[in-house]
């Protein structure tokens, strides 16, 4: 459909033939600016992806009730993943943590 190539190299007109076959012109894109825009968009997308990968989703210990289940007036909850992973630092008490290096050092 693209009829002319001059515009791409700095020309001001970009000739296009429409579906009906009639020729018409549209302003040509500034290729250099467009290229910079593409690069910036790519950088932004990559940054967004990297950022989202580094951001952990909010920890949750509940999950939705099954759709078929009608709790009625009862208060019902559904534990997620059997509570197998809690956020670090959980618990009231200091839990003994074995530091293998200190064990080795003390021998």
């Amino acid at each position, binding site marked *: 459909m693209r009829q002319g190539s001059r515009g791409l190299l700095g020309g001001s007109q970009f000739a296009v033939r429409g579906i009906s076959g009639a020729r018409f012109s549209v302003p040509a894109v500034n290729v250099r600016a467009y290229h910079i825009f593409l690069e910036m968009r790519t950088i932004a997308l990559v940054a967004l992806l990297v950022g989202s990968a580094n951001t952990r989703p909010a920890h949750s210990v509940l999950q939705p009730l*099954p759709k078929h289940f009608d*709790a009625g007036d009862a208060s019902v*909850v559904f*534990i997620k993943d059997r509570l197998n992973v809690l956020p670090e*630092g*959980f618990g009231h008490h200091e839990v003994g943590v074995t530091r293998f290096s200190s064990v080795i050092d003390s021998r």
Partner: protein
Amino acid sequence: MTVDEPFFDIGITDKHVEKELEEIANAEFIAFDVRFFDLIGSRPLLEPMFNLSKTISLREAPVYVPTSNLLFVSDMGARKPMRINLTEKEPTLEYVSLHPHLESINGAAYSAFDNLIYATVNPSPGISGGIYAIDPETLETFPVVNNYVGHHFNSPNDLVVQDDGLWFTDPPYAALLGNGSTAELRPNVYFYNTSSHVLKAVDENLQLPNGIALSPDNKILYVADSGALCQPIGQPTVASEHRSIYAYDIVDSLLFNKRLVYITDFWVPDGVKVSASGTIYTAAGIFVDVISPDGVLLGKIRTQGSMQNLIFAGPKYEELWIVGLGGVYRTRISDPGIPFKVSKSPSQLRIQT
């Protein structure tokens, strides 16, 4: 974290999780497994009954008598049983007297074999610890077995009936509670046959044998070990001791292949009951833990008291009654209990003295 703290009281800095834990703390039914929803059924109910939650009294030994649709519960504080009539639209409660008097009934089970309630009774003034029978109609009582070849039992705790056989546990709770007794026997699980009168110890390797139940096919015996309560009363629970449910295969009234099925995360397993589906229910402090036959925690029913025992009741055994220090609860679930096979009419069944 100790075993005297429920899991939702765990300290957490994550605000989102902290909010969820508050939601869990206020829930009546806590599912850990999707199968739990089928067991409790849609629109489950948990009802505190008879406004008993404010009265401080240990309630134990719930037993359902299908021939009269009555539920008996031992009220240790009142030192007499409660009788709950389930025939009325709203169950009614009355206290009854036994003849001769029995107090400190800690466990009970109905025997369709001879239409009697068999009860495990702690020692009390004038009463040796042992197994006693109660006629549910006349409320007459008589001793069935109160010693092992001259040795006093410790404090018989709970029992389950298998035809003419009684399986029961005998931990030294009375001594732990400070009654001054000295153990004459190890904490044992016993089997007693009401026809042959044979009494035999079948496991002597539990710390504090407690609740006891049979699988629907009577081939597996479940026994709770609440050994974590081994300290005198008032002392904290010892997390490193037993809070376990074990299963055994039964062959010729002997026990084989003992294996660990479950440990509680909170408190200890007390009363144990099994539904017709083989699901295990145990009273464990504020919770009733619901466990699959292969030992998977399916969910918890949360009460506002400290629950000791439970029983399936009602004509279809679809009511699960939970009793304990914080009152009496009824919950309607979709996992009914094991129906009794009553082969004789009550009139044919009389107390044998």
